[in-house]
């Protein structure tokens, strides 16, 4: 016979007659399949129970003990086997027998004597059915497992999830969502989403849903105030995504809410604690400054009245120590303000000009991109420090320049002058606290200010040719104007 099949199957032949069993087995093996046998119905079912790895069953109807119909019924009731195609091969070829076989779930009916060509065709077709059913079962198992995982996340997660229809009504809510809003009894379905929001957040909530539907893009989460059943507002970070049909029309909106109420409480408590500390710092600094002024006044008077040259060096040392204390107090004033206020978007060019113009930098050029930078409100102080250092330590400077460029996805802000530059041995230390020719705090503060929003600063100039400060602003912290 032509054409050995390529899809190798495992075939169980249930046939009581030894000669027919051998012949049928030989034909099936010749087609390339592996074969196992059962001589009667009971042993066939036991064999399948013990080893269910079968792709097709060839079943005779007239068998000793239970007949082929009972075997067929047993197969269809056996979990894991019920989808295996069964070809009834029988000499009982009445229409009644054929119909009953098919009705009981047989895939096909082959009359005896078996025609080998017909058997090959039926086996090939049944194997294709089995492969398709196996794939379906695998897909179904995958979908079921995925669905179970998804269900566990939705039901057990801490994120509140609700599905909103195109009219803005809640269609489904998960337990976390209901708990957040103080009702775990399955309520809220059918309510308008905006009615769940505090009046202060409704406008923003409506805008968020509309924007999600219109833009088709991922939107950043928004913090909205929700109304709770117990009348205590809850704050939530709200992300929305829209499920669409193949034409892009919105079908429903998925809204995920992370409870940020506690975080906001901590932030508020922290802000208050910081405010108190700042008041305490300011008062203490003010008191010390007053006393310092008084001591310096007395010292100055003492220096004027002093007639003993032996005391001069001691008085000078005392005066220098007082000046150092004054500078350190000034530093505490500046440092306490860093990070106190939230970062803000600041237009770069205007900021640089406003910061450095009072210092009248020589040969100033500002060639920067039209961008805003997201940074601590004290960013201005960084640019001021660059030019102040140029003025104090740069020597004969004729040029100061601010410029920008893109480096990958980051923004580089570069400041250069043509002064004496920074000695190689000091490059790594200039950003440390207390290092420097004046207060030693300027560049330390600059690095601290920048670090709050993830920006970095390095000095890459050449000694004798000028300084070159390079600020790297990460992606997301700058944007076009």
């Amino acid at each position, binding site marked *: *016979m032509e054409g050995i099949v390529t899809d190798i199957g495992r075939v169980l032949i249930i046939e009581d007659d030894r*000669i*027919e069993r051998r*012949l049928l087995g030989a*034909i099936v093996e*010749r087609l390339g399949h592996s074969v196992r046998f059962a001589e009667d119905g009971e042993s066939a079912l036991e064999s399948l129970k013990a080893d269910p790895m079968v792709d097709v069953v060839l079943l005779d109807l*007239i068998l000793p003990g239970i007949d082929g119909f009972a075997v067929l019924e047993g197969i269809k009731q056996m979990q894991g086997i019920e989808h295996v195609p069964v070809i009834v091969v029988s000499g*009982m070829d009445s229409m009644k027998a054929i119909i009953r076989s098919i009705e009981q779930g047989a895939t096909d009916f082959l009359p005896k004597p078996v025609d080998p*060509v017909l058997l090959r065709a039926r086996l090939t077709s049944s194997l294709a059915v089995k492969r398709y059913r196996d794939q379906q079962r695998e897909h179904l198992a995958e979908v079921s497992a995925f669905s179970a995982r998804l269900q566990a996340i939705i039901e057990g997660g801490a994120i509140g999830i609700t599905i909103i229809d195109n009219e803005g009504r809640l269609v489904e809510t998960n337990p976390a969502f209901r708990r957040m809003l103080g009702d775990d009894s399955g309520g809220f379905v059918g309510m308008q989403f905006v009615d769940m929001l505090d009046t202060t957040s409704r406008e923003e909530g409506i805008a968020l849903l509309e924007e999600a539907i219109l833009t088709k893009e991922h939107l950043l989460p928004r913090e909205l105030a929700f109304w709770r059943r117990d009348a205590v507002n809850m704050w939530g970070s709200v992300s929305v995504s829209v499920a669409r049909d193949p034409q892009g029309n919105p079908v429903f909106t998925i809204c995920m809410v992370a409870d940020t109420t506690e975080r906001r409480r901590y932030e508020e408590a922290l802000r208050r604690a910081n405010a108190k500390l700042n008041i305490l710092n300011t008062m203490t600094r003010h008191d010390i400054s007053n006393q310092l002024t008084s001591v310096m006044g007395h010292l100055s008077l003492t220096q004027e009245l002093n007639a003993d040259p032996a005391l001069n060096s001691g008085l000078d040392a005392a005066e220098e120590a007082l000046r150092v204390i004054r500078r350190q107090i000034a530093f505490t004033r500046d440092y306490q303000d860093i990070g106190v206020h939230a970062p803000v978007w600041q237009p770069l060019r205007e900021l640089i000009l406003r910061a450095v113009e009072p210092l009248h930098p020589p040969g100033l050029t500002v060639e920067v991109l039209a961008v805003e930078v997201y940074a601590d409100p004290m960013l201005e102080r960084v640019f001021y420090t660059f030019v102040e250092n140029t003025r104090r330590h740069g020597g004969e400077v004729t040029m100061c320049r601010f410029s920008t460029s893109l480096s990958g996805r980051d923004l580089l802000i570069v400041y250069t002058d043509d002064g004496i530059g920074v000695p190689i041995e000091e490059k790594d230390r200039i950003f440390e606290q207390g290092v420097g020719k004046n207060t030693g705090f300027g560049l330390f503060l600059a690095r601290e200010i920048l670090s709050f929003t993830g920006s970095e600063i390095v000095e890459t100039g050449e000694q004798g040719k000028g300084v070159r400060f390079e600020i790297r602003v990460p992606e997301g912290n700058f944007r076009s104007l």
Partner: protein
Amino acid sequence: MDTDVRPVLDRGVLDRLVDSLGATGPSLIDELIIELGDDVPVQFTTLEQALEHGDAVTVRRVAHTLKSTAALFGGMRLSSVMRTIEAMAVEGRLVEIPFLMRSAREEYAAFSALLGQWKAS
């Protein structure tokens, strides 16, 4: 008068069978013909004993098997007789079957002789 026009041995059936088994076909069929020669007389005896005991189920099952086996090897007339016996067993007409058994044995003898010839050729 013998009115059955079907052949005692349909050689075409045997040839197709050999064909479907490839290189091992001839030797396997030879082997199975020998088994058939051993098996059929035993089956006849079983059938006749079942008739004596009025065991219609066994009569039907053995007749059904012999019908299929005979047809498988091209013994169309023997198969036809066994079909009739099977039908009678289903209808419970066991008393009529002994008359057909004589015919069955005659058909088998003729079929067996032709099988031997086919095998020798």
